[in-house]
C-alpha cells in the first residue's frame, strides 16, 4: 500500500505563512481535507502536486522524496473545483489525453480499453463522441474526474470537486466516488469545506485551518471529540452552537439560564467556559427526561426539505441554531421554549478555545 508522508511542511511567501508545520500521513483510498475557504487546502494540494515548492519540510511517496521528481514525471492527477476539459476534444479524447502524456505511451488498444473502462465507471459511455460543451455541468465534472482516473496516478487530488454542482448531483457523485475509489490503490486527497461531505465519506479526515493541521482521524470521532472550537465548527453543519458561560459550584450559567452541571474538570473555582451544543441536540418539545430549558426568539426558520434550521436569539443576545426534522414554518420573532440534555454539551476553554469536556456517550436525546 502506497503512503504519502508530509513532514513539517511549511510554505511562506512574502513573510506570510500559508502552510504552517504540516505533518500528516495519507494512505490509499480517500483522505479528506476539511476546512473553511482560505484554510490552505488548495495550497497544500499544489505543494503535493509539485506546482509549488515547500519553503521547508519534506513530502515523500513510499519513502522517495517528491522534490527530486520533476512535475511531469510525478504520478499525480489534479481535479479542480472549476472543471477544466479541452473544449475542442471529444469526451473520449479528453479522457485519453493523460495517457498520451505518459512516458511509455500505451498502445491504441490499451488506450481504448482504459478510456472505455473509466467512462463506464463514471456513466459517460453514451457521451464519448460528444464535446464537453454538449454535456451538463455534472457530466462535464465527471469527464474531468475520468481524466484524473484514466492514467491510474499514484496520487489523485480532488480540490472541492463537487462545489459547483447542484446538491442532487453532489449526492449522487459523492456516492459514486466512494465506490470508485474503494477498490483503487491510489492515494486520493479530497478537499471540502462541507462537514456533511466528511461525515458522508466516513474516512480518514484532516481538519485544516489557517494553514495548520488541527486534528486528524475518522470524521465521526472528530465530530464527537473535537480538540478545539475550530475543529468542532469545521466538522458540524450547521456549525455547533457556542454559548459563553460560567461553571461554578456544580452549576452552569448562560444568559439568564442556570442549571445543575458537573463534569470532570469543572469542579473547583469558577471557570469561564464556552459551552457547545449541536443544532440537532436542541429540541422544541419538552423531553421526558430531565433537561435544561431556555426561552428564545425566532430570527428565521430555514427549510431544507427534510429538516428545518431555526435560527434564534436568547436573552444574552447570542444566536443559536436549532435543527428539527421535517419542514416546519415559524413566524419571525415567534417566542419559543427550547430544551437540551446537559449530557450533550461540549465545553471549551474560553481563553484557549481548546476542548475541556465532550458529550457523554449515548446521550438520551437521540
Amino acid at each position: 500500500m502506497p503512503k504519502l508522508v508530509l513532514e513539517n511542511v511549511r510554505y511562506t511567501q512574502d513573510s506570510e505563512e500559508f502552510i504552517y508545520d504540516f505533518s500528516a500521513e495519507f494512505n490509499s483510498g480517500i483522505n479528506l481535507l476539511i476546512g473553511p475557504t482560505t484554510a490552505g487546502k488548495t495550497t497544500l494540494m499544489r505543494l503535493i502536486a509539485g506546482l509549488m515548492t515547500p519553503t521547508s519540510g519534506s513530502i515523500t511517496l513510499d519513502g522517495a522524496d517528491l522534490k527530486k521528481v520533476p512535475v511531469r514525471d510525478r504520478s499525480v492527477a489534479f481535479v479542480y473545483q472549476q472543471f477544466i476539459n479541452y473544449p475542442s476534444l471529444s469526451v473520449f479524447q479528453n479522457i485519453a489525453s493523460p495517457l498520451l502524456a505518459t512516458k511509455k505511451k500505451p498502445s491504441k488498444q490499451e488506450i481504448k480499453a482504459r478510456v472505455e473502462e473509466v467512462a463506464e465507471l463514471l456513466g459517460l459511455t453514451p457521451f464519448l463522441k460528444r464535446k464537453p460543451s454538449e454535456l451538463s455541468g455534472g457530466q462535464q465534472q465527471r469527464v474531468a474526474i475520468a481524466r484524473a482516473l484514466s492514467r491510474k496516478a499514484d496520487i489523485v487530488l480532488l480540490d472541492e470537486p463537487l462545489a459547483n454542482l447542484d446538491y442532487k448531483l453532489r449526492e449522487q457523485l459523492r456516492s459514486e466516488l466512494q465506490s470508485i475509489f474503494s477498490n483503487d490503490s491510489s492515494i486520493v486527497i479530497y478537499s471540502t469545506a462541507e462537514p456533511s461531505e466528511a461525515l458522508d465519506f466516513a474516512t480518514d479526515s484532516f481538519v485544516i485551518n489557517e494553514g495548520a493541521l488541527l486534528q486528524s482521524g475518522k470524521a465521526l470521532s472528530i465530530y464527537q471529540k473535537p480538540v478545539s472550537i475550530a475543529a468542532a465548527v469545521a466538522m458540524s453543519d450547521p456549525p455547533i452552537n457556542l454559548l459563553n458561560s460560567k461553571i461554578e459550584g456544580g452549576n452552569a450559567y448562560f444568559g439568564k439560564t442556570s442549571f445543575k452541571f458537573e463534569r470532570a474538570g469543572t469542579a473547583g473555582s469558577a471557570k469561564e467556559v464556552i459551552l457547545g451544543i449541536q443544532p440537532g441536540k436542541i429540541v422544541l418539545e419538552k423531553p421526558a427526561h430531565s433537561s435544561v430549558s431556555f426561552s428564545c426568539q425566532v430570527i428565521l426558520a430555514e427549510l431544507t426539505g427534510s429538516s428545518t434550521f431555526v435560527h434564534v436569539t436568547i436573552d444574552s443576545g447570542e444566536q443559536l441554531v436549532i435543527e428539527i426534522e421535517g419542514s416546519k414554518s415559524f413566524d419571525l420573532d415567534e417566542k419559543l421554549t427550547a430544551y437540551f440534555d446537559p449530557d450533550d454539551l461540549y465545553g471549551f476553554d474560553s481563553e484557549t478555545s481548546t476542548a475541556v469536556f465532550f458529550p457523554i456517550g449515548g446521550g438520551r436525546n437521540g
Partner: protein
Amino acid sequence: MADIRLEGIAHSYDGGKTYAVRPITMTWEDGKAYALLGPSGCGKTTLLNIASGLLKPSEGRIFIDGKDVTDLPTDQRNIAQVFQFPVLYDTMTVRKNLEFPLKNRKLSREEITKRVTEISALLGIDDKLDIKPSKLRSDLQQIVSLGRGLVRSDVAAILFDEPLTVIDQNFKWTLRNRLKRLQLSTGATVVYVTHDQTEALTFADEVLVMDQGNLVQVGTSEKLFLEPEHEFVGYFIGSPGMNFFEVEASSSVLSLNGEQIGSANKPGLDGTLRLGVRPEFLVPGAKGDIEFNVERIEDRGVYKLVHLTKAGFQLIAKVDENYSATVGGLAHFTFAPDRAFVFDGNKKVIATVSPMSKARN
C-alpha cells in the same frame, strides 16, 4: 401590489418543436412570496422572463391586477427586478444608487430619504451609503442591488433571479432573513427563481417545482415534503431524496418479492407499480415487517443512514443515532402510514399506501 395571473402561459424557443415551459394557468396572489424551483433547464428562468416582460410567451396571456400586460414591455409593467449579479451605477454612491429608482418616480425629498434609510438599515448597509459600489466586496454590491430592487414601495411585484448566487454561504441565511422581513414589511408580491431548495423553501409561501418545462407541484414546504404529488418532487426535495422501488399489486394489495407489505387507498390496482418512500418514513420495525439486508450504516453524528437492499432495490432509511444493526445481516423496517406513494406511468401520485405486517395481522 397586485395579483399576477398566468393563463395558459407556455413557451417554445423553436417554433413549437420543443417547449421550455408547458402550459401553466395559475394566480400569484397579492402579497405572497413564490419560488420557482428546479434544476437548470427546467424552465424557471423562462417563466420569470415572461412575467417580467423580457420574453413574450409563444402561448397564453399574462395579467397584472386584471390588466393584460402580455404585449407590454418591462418598464410598463410596474415591477422591480433583481438579477444574479450586481447591476449598479458605478459613478454613483450607494445612496445615489438606492435613490435612483425613487427619483425616477418623482417622490419628495423627505420620502426618498426616509425610504433609503429604512431599506439600508434593513439590509445592513447603512454605514456604506457614501461609498461607491466598486469599493465594496461583490456580495455587498449584490446587497445594494437587492436594495435597489426593493426600495420602491409602489411596485406591483418584485422578481428575483437567483439573487444570492454570489453571496458567501455563511451570510446567506442572514440575507434570507432580511429579504423575508422586507417582503413581510412591504407586502410586495414576490417571485423568486432558484435551484437551491433551501432558499426556495425558506423564502416562499408557496413553491412551484418545475421539471423539464412542466410545473409538477405547487405547495408549501410541508406539503412538498409530506405529500409529494410527483416523483420529481420526491427526488428533488429532501436529502437524501425519496426511495423508489417496484412492487406487484393484486386488488391494491402490494407485494415486494412475494411478501405482502401494504395496501393502497385506491381500489383496483394491479400489476407492477412504482412505489416511493422518503428515508425519514422508512422506520425500524419488528419481526413480521419487511426484511432487508443491511449493506452499510453511515453515522452522521445526530442521525444515521441505513443502506438497505431487497429484491435488487436499494433503499436508504434515516434513523436516530441510537439505532444499531449488523452490517451484512438482516433488519426489519416498515413505513409510516400514508407516507408511501404509488406513482403512475406519468410519475404522478395515484394512491398512498399503509403498511401490512405479518406480526400485527
